[in-house]
C-alpha cells in the first residue's frame, strides 16, 4: 500500500484544532440536536474508529486486509452475548476487543507468512469463511441474527459518548504508535520488509502486534454498534462489503497518516448514512466516483489535498507579509 508520506504533515491542522473539535463534540448534545443528528454522529464515530484501526495495519504497516469485518462482527457478537449475560457495557466492550485481538492472532499466524497480494487474498477467504460459519452457529441465532434484551431504558446520548470516547482512544493510539519505535518498525516493514529485517526488526511479530491492536479497536467498535442497534445478523456485521468499506475509508481520507483515516471515516459516515436515506440508488455511485477521483488525482487522499491547500494558503500569506 502506497502511503501518503509522513504523518504530521506540516502546515495543516494547528495543534489546538483537534482539541477544539473534541470540545465542540462533547458540548454539542447540550444544544439539543435532533436524534437523527446524534445517530449520524454516533455512526460516524464508529466508522472513524474502524478506519483508524485499519490504518494501523494497512497504512503504517502496509498490510492490506479485506478481512476486518471478521473483527467487527466478532466484537459485535461478543458484546451482545456479554450484555445479555449481564456484563457492564464497558466490560462487554473490553471483552469484544479481547476476542477480536485473539482472532487476529489466529488469522495472522498463518496469513502473515504470505506477502503483498497473497496476504490480501487470504484475508478475503478468512472473512468469507467466518461469515459462513456464523450464519450456521445456532447459539447466536444463525442467519436470523441475535437480539440484545434491553433491561434498561435506551439513552441515545450514552451511546454517543461511548462511541466518541472510543474514537478519541483510537486517534490517541494511532498517534502514539506513529511516534513509537513500533510505528517506525511498521513503516520500515511497509517500505521494505527485507531491509527492515536486516536492521533487526522482527517483522512477523510487529505485523501480528499491529493486527491485534487494529482488531481490538475494530472489535470494540463492533461492540459499540451492536449495543446501539440491539440487533445484529451475520449478513450485516460480517458482510464482505463491511470489510471493503473499512479498507476504503482510510484510502479516501489519506492512508498512512493520523488524520486521513479520520477524514475518511467522517466522509464515509456522512455519505453512507445520509445518501442511503436520500438517494438509495445513487449513494454507491457517489462513493465510487469519489474513490476513482481520489485514486486518480490525489493518491494521498483528502488529507493530502487539504494539506496542499493549507500550504498554498500559508505560502500566499508569507508572500503578502514579505511584500506589504
Amino acid at each position, binding site marked *: 500500500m502506497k502511503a501518503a508520506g509522513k504523518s504530521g504533515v506540516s502546515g495543516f491542522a494547528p495543534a489546538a484544532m483537534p482539541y477544539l473539535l473534541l470540545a465542540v463534540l462533547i458540548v454539542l448534545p447540550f444544544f439539543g440536536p435532533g436524534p437523527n443528528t446524534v445517530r449520524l454522529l454516533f455512526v460516524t464515530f464508529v466508522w472513524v474508529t474502524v478506519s483508524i484501526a485499519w490504518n494501523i495495519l494497512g497504512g503504517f504497516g502496509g498490510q492490506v486486509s479485506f478481512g476486518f469485518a471478521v473483527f467487527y462482527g466478532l466484537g459485535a457478537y461478543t458484546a451482545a452475548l456479554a450484555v445479555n449475560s449481564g456484563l457492564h457495557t464497558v466490560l462487554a466492550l473490553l471483552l469484544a476487543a479481547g476476542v477480536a485481538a485473539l482472532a487476529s492472532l489466529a488469522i495472522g499466524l498463518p496469513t502473515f507468512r504470505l506477502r503483498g497480494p497473497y496476504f490480501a487474498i487470504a484475508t478475503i477467504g478468512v472473512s468469507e469463511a467466518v461469515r459462513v460459519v456464523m450464519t450456521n452457529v445456532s447459539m447466536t441465532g444463525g442467519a436470523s441474527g441475535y437480539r440484545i434484551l434491553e433491561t434498561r431504558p435506551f439513552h441515545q446520548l450514552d451511546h454517543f459518548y461511548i462511541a466518541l470516547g472510543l474514537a478519541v482512544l483510537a486517534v490517541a493510539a494511532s498517534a502514539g504508535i506513529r511516534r513509537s519505535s513500533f510505528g517506525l518498525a511498521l*513503516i520500515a516493514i511497509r*517500505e521494505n520488509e527485507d531491509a527492515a529485517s*536486516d*536492521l533487526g526488526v522482527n517483522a512477523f511479530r510487529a505485523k501480528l502486534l499491529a493486527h491485534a491492536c487494529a482488531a481490538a479497536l475494530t472489535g470494540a467498535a463492533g461492540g459499540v454498534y451492536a449495543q446501539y442497534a440491539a440487533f445484529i445478523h451475520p449478513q450485516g456485521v460480517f458482510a464482505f462489503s463491511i470489510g471493503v468499506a473499512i479498507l476504503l475509508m482510510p484510502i479516501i481520507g489519506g492512508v498512512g497518516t493520523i488524520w486521513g483515516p479520520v477524514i475518511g471515516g467522517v466522509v464515509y459516515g456522512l455519505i453512507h448514512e445520509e445518501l442511503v436515506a436520500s438517494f438509495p440508488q445513487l449513494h454507491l455511485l457517489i462513493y465510487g466516483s469519489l474513490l476513482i477521483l481520489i485514486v486518480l488525482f490525489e493518491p494521498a487522499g483528502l488529507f493530502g489535498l487539504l494539506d496542499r491547500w493549507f500550504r498554498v494558503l500559508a505560502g500566499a500569506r508569507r508572500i503578502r507579509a514579505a511584500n506589504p
Partner: protein
Amino acid sequence: MPPILSLDRVTKNFAGLIALKGVSFELQQGGIYGLIGPNGAGKTTLLSIIAGSIQPTSGAVIFEGRNLIGIKSFGVVRAGVVRTHQVPKPFRALSVLENVEVGMRFGHSQSSASDPQSGAQILEWVGIAHLAHASAATLSVGDQKRLELARALAARPTLLLCDEVCSGLTESETACILSLLCRIEKSGTTILYVEHNLRAVMSVSHHVIVMNYGQKLAEGSPQIVQNDPAVIEAYIGRTTNTDGREPRTKSVA
C-alpha cells in the same frame, strides 16, 4: 584467539543448481576481509547465508562461538552481524535520519563505548549530515550507498557485511567509501567486503578470499592472491598453447 566468524563446509543448492559447495574459512577479529570472484561465484549467496536471509542446505556458520544456522535475519543482526545490500533499499517514505533510527532502535542488542551515540553522529561520519531531514526517496545513488552504510553502522555491528558498496559509483565517490570502510575498521568492527571492483577491494583488504563456481579457490594477502595461478585463470583465462601466443580470455573480472 578464537575466530570471530567461521564457516564450516557451507553448501547451498537452489533446486538443481549448486550455488555453494563446501565453503569453509575463518575471520579473525578486526581487519577488512575481501571476498571476490567472477560473476555467479556465490559471493552474495554466501553473504546472505551469514546474514540469515537464506538458510544453507548444509554446513555451519559460527559467529562468536554461536551457530547462526536457523536464526532469522533480525536475530543475526541482534547478535551483531549486519549487512548492506548491493542495490540500496532505503525506506523511501522516511527521512534519512529516520532510516538510521531504525538501525539504532532495533540493531545489535549489546552496545560498546565506541558505538556512535546518535543518528546525527553517524550521518556526520558517512558525510550526509546535511541530508538528515531530506526524504530518503530524493537521494542520489552515491548518497543511497552512504545511507545504506549509515543504517548498518547504526545497528552497532561487530561484523559488517558489505555487498558491493562501490558498484555504480564514480572514482572519487569510491575513494570516499573506501576511506570510510577503513575508518569503520579502525573503530573495531570486522568487515567482510564483497566487491567486483578488484582495485578497490585489493587496496583496503588485508586478507582476500577468492571464490569461483561456488567453491573457495584461494585465500591470503592481496599480493599472494593476485599472483595465484588458479585465481589468474579464473579471472583472466588460461593459456591454451605454449608457443607464446596471446592467452584466450575465458572470463573477465
